[in-house]
């Protein structure tokens, strides 16, 4: 539709350009500007305040020699992959079930969605409580007579990430369900009728027909989930504080602690620059294909 009466020149679409000024400013000044600022200062020895003493790649050398940083990345990778897959699967499953023209749809939807209204801090606190072996789920099950029942993921180095995952999924999957449900509702009834006639089984219809049609909603969902994964911080703080040991440390927490607790800004900037680079490497090619390559209807 952008072709409709499209003249050339700087002053064409002038109103649209003026209207886009806040977006352009945000993109250039805040996101690009602050990122460049951060990257530039990651080459200095800034401590509490930005300093202009150049130290080259020293911060990066130190960063990649820091075990906590490496552990943080590994943790985020494990959490991120599991969260992404499980949130999509669980969200889609819930949406598909609710979409079966069931009774009490409103009730079920509200139950699945309400956690998203609460903050990550609250989510972390509640789940820390529920997963506490002394008075949480483990204790409740034991008092039913299952004396040897053990469920204390937060107190074990090997399982703590799954404990965080349980809380993260609880918080986010309802939103994914809603987005997916909206996607399913946006699909024409005719599609179902057609596949029904052709004798294609329901699961196949979902996988091969419905999901590809829901591409835009999947993109929105992906952006929402992955951006939350990368920013993972509050939940860990409230639930585990990064422990036991370093077993649930994440990069955003590393950056924050470096900047404000260790008061080593430049080291924090170096870590955040690495995060930024990782994001850019993944997103730019994808965004080019997604937003740049084709015209929209």
């Amino acid at each position: 539709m952008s072709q409709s009466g499209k003249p050339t020149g700087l002053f064409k679409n002038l109103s649209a350009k003026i209207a886009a000024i806040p977006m352009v400013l945000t993109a250039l000044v805040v996101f690009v500007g602050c990122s460049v600022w951060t990257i530039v200062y990651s080459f200095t020895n800034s401590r509490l305040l930005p300093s202009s003493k150049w130290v080259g790649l020293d911060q990066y050398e130190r960063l990649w020699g820091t075990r906590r940083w490496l552990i943080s990345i590994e943790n985020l990778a494990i959490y991120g992959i599991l969260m992404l897959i499980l949130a999509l699967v669980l969200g889609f499953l819930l949406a598909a079930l609710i979409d079966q023209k069931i009774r009490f749809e409103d009730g079920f939807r509200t139950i699945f969605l309400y956690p998203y209204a609460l903050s990550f801090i609250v989510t972390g606190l509640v789940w820390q409580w529920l997963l506490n072996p002394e008075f949480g789920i483990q204790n409740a099950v034991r008092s039913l007579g299952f004396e040897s029942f053990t469920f204390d993921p937060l107190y074990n180095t090997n399982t703590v990430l799954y404990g965080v995952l349980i809380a993260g999924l609880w918080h986010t999957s309802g939103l994914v369900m809603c987005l997916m449900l909206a996607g399913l509702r946006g699909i024409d009834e005719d599609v179902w009728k057609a596949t029904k006639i052709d004798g294609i089984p329901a699961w196949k219809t979902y996988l091969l027909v419905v999901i590809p049609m829901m591409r835009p909603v999947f993109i929105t969902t992906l952006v929402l989930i992955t951006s939350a994964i990368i920013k993972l911080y509050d939940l860990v703080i409230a639930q585990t504080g990064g422990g036991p040991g370093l077993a649930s440390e994440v990069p955003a927490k590393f950056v924050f602690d470096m900047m404000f607790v260790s008061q080593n800004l430049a080291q924090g900037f170096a870590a955040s620059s690495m995060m930024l680079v990782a994001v850019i490497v993944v997103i730019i090619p994808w965004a080019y294909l997604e937003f740049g390559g084709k015209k929209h209807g």
Partner: protein
Amino acid sequence: MRKFNTIAFGAILATTALPAFATDLEVTHWWTSGAEAAAIGVIADGFQKSGNTWVDGAIAGAGGVARPLITSRITGGDPMGATQFTHSSAMRELIEAGFMRDVTEIAETQGWKDQIFPQSLLDSCTFEGKLYCVPSNIHSQQWLWLNNAVFTDNGLSVPQNWDEFVAAAPTLREKGIIPLAQGQQSWQKQLMFNVLMVSIGGPELFEKVYSGRDADYAAGPDVAKVFTAAAQARDLMEGSNVQAWNEAARLVIDGRAGGQIMGDWIQGEFNQSGMKAGEDFSCLPGLGVNEYITAAGDAFYFPKVDDAEIIAAQDVLAGVIVSPETQVAFTKAKGALPVRRDVELQDPTPCMEKGMEILKSGHIVESINTMVSPDTVGRVTDLMVEFFADPGFTPEAAQAEFAEIIATAD
């Protein structure tokens, strides 16, 4: 919306009956728990008596939120009137950059030099000969706290030092009691290790490592003893899964744990549950080995401002903090030691008396926070978090990494 504020503000004014020229002074601090809030209330009351208004900027969570808030507000050109901060080198850059107000003049007029004790409190506030902060109280960290009943009920005598404590531990374990309680938060691991450094290693060792930054010494046999003790402590702490220090204190109070290594602020917890020092619980300064304590604590800093009224209010607050009346009531509420030598403690507990004696005898070590940068403290903390969480991490390996940190410390 504005209106609501005015009403709320009016209510505050009315209750305190102020003269017309009252100045609002915003004070940032992270003292939000019961005893702490009562303590800051003492300062606030003293300040409001002068006719000014205290605007409370309480933010729980010292490291996480308060620090970025404080530096942001100051560097962002919208500083608070005064802010609490730990006595440390952390503020140095803000002072160097000229953001903080020099209070030397007040100190001289009020003769702080003769009153404030120990001298090191003022030293760590001093930068290039000028004074930049007002010490409010002293806290020391090198204490082992024991629940007497846990030992006597199990046929043990209450340990008098670290070695006796370690020797008593197996009996406690048999009874299903955690010998040593400790919270999982990272700062507590760092505290634990550095207490062992001072108490097991001794004050000279502590200063040689952090002040002298002697990496070879840090890798040597003297420091190895500290790491052996740390590994012992790690075994004794097994099963202490709580997060916060006061949850760990709760384990000790309830008799589910034998003791805890923690700063003297833990007394507030014992007092609240009706336990009496000496009778119900014991305290071993320097773990009963080397009776040396750090004389650091909290201090207030004043950002530089142009407003003459606020400057006047800052002056008033500085005077209130160190005044004998405030010191008596404030330290009592907070369970801390006063920063003046001419102040008599009000019904001091045996533990506070012990602390005061040690201070007076000059058995004081400098705090790690004034000897090395927050960055170095952070690296030591990360190492200790890993070491205490992983029984497979050998003391030798940890010591080697520690020596590396000391070699590059700043």
